[in-house]
Each structure stands twice: as structure tokens, then as C-alpha cells.
């Protein structure tokens, strides 16, 4: 396993450096860069654009299809970056995970009420497709390595949970995207 040592070594080195800013930048960049090129996400976004065009929600020209799919991809990538950032912040500050996740669920439910019906299925799915073969080992190693480097953190309790945020925030963001695109 070549990816685990990399993630853990980097988490350890960043924790030793003690700069919260660089740690946050790294977390965001890791989430964004692993998601934006994710094949499963590209496939689902393309499919979503096709279906939205067939349903008459967006123009069926090639250009508008592409811009819709690209917008969806960027929305998901930014939200995964943000969620890794929040997850890392949680490990550093030692917040209990379930309050954050439960409040995330509440936001998802509130967004479901106001979001257009056509985006909801895609938004719920976007949460699941973001976490890929490359992302998961790196992100899991980042969390566990970070929790092991900070005193008073237990790797089992604090190290996991990054992926949970990465599947929750995209739902909220994609529904927001739907509100903006279809709401016009």
C-alpha cells in the first residue's frame, strides 16, 4: 500500500509544522483535486446533464449540456474540499462528530423542501459518488495520521469521519446549485 504512508507522513509533518493555515490549505486542495478528476463523478454529471436536457430543464445544445455538467462537477469538488477542511478542523479542535453530522442532516432536509424536485435525486447521489479509490486511502490516512500526531486524540474516535463530511456537504451544495440554475 503506497498511499497510506504518504498520507500519514504528510499529516504528521503538517501537524509538527504547527501551521493551521497550511493544514487547512492542504485539506481543501486534497479534497478538490481528488474529486474534480473522479471518473464516477464525471459519468454521473454527464448522465445528469442528458436527463435534464431531455426533461426540458436546460437547453439541449452541446454547449449548455457541457456547462451544466462542468458546473455540477465544480460544485461537488468545491464542497468536498470544504468538507475535508471542516473535518480536519474538527480533528484539530476535537469537536464531537455527531453534532456536526446531525446538523448537516437537518440542513439537507431543509434544503430538500425548497430545492427543485429534479435536482434532489442527483444531489443525494452526489454525496455518494465523490469518494473514490484514490481519495479514500489518502483521506483516511490524513485523518488517522493527524489524530495520532495531536496529543489527546484517539485515532479510532477522531481519525475517522472525514469521508462522512465528504458525502454530506456535496448534497447541500448541489441542491444550492439546482436552486441557482433552475430558479432563474
Amino acid at each position, binding site marked *: *500500500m*503506497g*498511499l497510506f504512508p504518504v498520507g500519514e*507522513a*504528510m499529516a504528521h*509533518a*503538517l501537524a509538527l509544522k504547527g501551521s493551521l493555515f497550511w493544514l487547512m490549505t*492542504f485539506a481543501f*486542495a*486534497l479534497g478538490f*483535486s*481528488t474529486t*474534480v*478528476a*473522479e471518473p*464516477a463523478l464525471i*459519468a*454521473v454529471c454527464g*448522465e445528469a446533464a442528458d*436527463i435534464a436536457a*431531455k*426533461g426540458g430543464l436546460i437547453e439541449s445544445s452541446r454547449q449548455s449540456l457541457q456547462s451544466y455538467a462542468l458546473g455540477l462537477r465544480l460544485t461537488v469538488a468545491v464542497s468536498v474540499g470544504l468538507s475535508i477542511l471542516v473535518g480536519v478542523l474538527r480533528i484539530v479542535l476535537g469537536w464531537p*462528530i*455527531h453534532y456536526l*453530522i*446531525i446538523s448537516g*442532516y437537518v440542513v*439537507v*432536509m431543509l434544503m*430538500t423542501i425548497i430545492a427543485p424536485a*429534479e435536482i*434532489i*435525486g*442527483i444531489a*443525494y*447521489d452526489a*454525496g*455518494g*459518488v*465523490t*469518494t*473514490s*479509490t*484514490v*481519495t*479514500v*486511502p*489518502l483521506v*483516511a*490516512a490524513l485523518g*488517522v495520521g493527524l489524530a495520532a500526531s495531536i496529543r489527546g486524540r484517539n485515532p*479510532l*474516535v*477522531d481519525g*475517522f*469521519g*472525514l*469521508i*462522512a463530511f465528504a*458525502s454530506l456537504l456535496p448534497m447541500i451544495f448541489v441542491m444550492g446549485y439546482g436552486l441557482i440554475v433552475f430558479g432563474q
Partner: protein
Amino acid sequence: MEFLSDFSKTLFTTCRDVAPVLALIICFQLFVLRQPIPHLRRLVSGGVYVVIGLALFLAGLEKALFPLGKIMASQLSDPVFIYGTSEPVVVADWTAYGWIYLFAAMTGFATTIAEPSLIAVAYKANEVSAGTINQWGLRITVAIGVAFGISLGTFRIVTGTPLFMYILAGYLVVVIQTMFAPRSIIPLAYDSGGVTTSTVTVPIVAALGIGLSSTVPGRNPALDGFGLIAFASLFPIITVMGYAQFMQWFVGRRTAIRKEDDNEI
């Protein structure tokens, strides 16, 4: 020859997918941490393994598994197979789709067992918990959750009931379980929801959902075709916490019995 060209194409796309991550790690290591990369040789050989392994894996999936999965999904949801006639049916009868539910559950179980991300997380969890979390136990628990989730998801597509009702109910169960489950399992359980759905599961499950919603009478693919993956990421959370609760109860009961035995002596 055809295989070689397919394989080199997959190898190229894999390199493209890995490139941004690699660039990020190298930039941070050199410019922010200002350290030489530790174990450079092992890292390079490991990286090459990752790329070649992933490319081989994806090429194999595309050659064998995906076409098979898609064909089976479309054949099983074909009205001729389900109702025995080719006449258009106006209202979907949910009891006629038994094979679909079974196929969905089996697909969910099998693809989750094969999922590399889940193997990676199970490995890490086993290492961190010093062996108390069994790798196979976790993988099978998650796979059962996915199987149930996808099966329920196809049921939802057939009946056309609104997605958010199911998800809301699932969330409620998760929240209630969180209050009672052992503290140490909660983050892992939340994570196992996300890791289940990646390279293997997503294409097959998405094809199943969209295929099914375009053949079931009265369903609109834009409204009903998506959502299976959401089910697949919700139910493993419930089963993993349930598994931990069961183990806690089981171990607790065994120690209680042992205490009673000691008292009798």
C-alpha cells in the same frame, strides 16, 4: 492488440486522475514542508503499483463486469420479462418486480465486497483498533447494508414514492442509533457510508436505476432514476452501528454469565 490499446487508454486516464493529487503532494512536500520526500524509492514503486493496479482493475471491469451488469439490469426491467406480455401496462404492480429486488440486493452485496476503497478503510480500521475490528466482519456488515439499501431503492423506483421520505426516515434511525451506539464506532460508521460507493458500485447501480425508471410505466428518469446511491450510502451507517451494538450486547452478556458462574462457585 485491441486489449493493449484499451489498456493503454485506461492507463492514461488513470494517470490523469492521479496527477492532480500527485502534484499537490509534491508541491506541499517541497515548498511548504521544505523536506525531502521520505522513503522516496518505496514511494515511487508504490505509486507505480497503484497506477498499474488501478488501470488493470478498471480495464477488467469495463471489459467484463459493466456490460454484463447493464445487460442484466435492462433485461430484468424489461416489461416483457416482468408481465409476460409486450402490451403497455399503465400502472406498475410492485409485486411483479421480485427478481429486480433480488438482483439489486445481490449486485449491492457483490460490488461492495469487491470495492477497493472499502478494503482500504477496513485495513486501516483494523490497524487502528489494534485488531478489535475484524476486516471481514466490517466488509460483510457494510455489504449487507448496501444490499438492503439498493433493494429498497429499486422498490422506491417501482412504487414511485418520494425519495426524501425514505432518506428522512433513514436519518432519524441514524440519529437515534448514534445516541446508543458505542462512542468509538460512530465516526467509522459514518465513514463507511461514503466509502461503499465508488469505482465498482456507482456505474452498475446508476445504470440499474436509470434503466429501471425508463421502463417502469409512469416513472420519469430525471425524478426517479437517481437516488439509489443515496440509499447505498445511508444503510451501511445503520448496519455498522447495529453490528457494534450487537457485539457490545453480546460481549456484555457473556461477561455477565461468566460472573454468575463465578458467584455460584
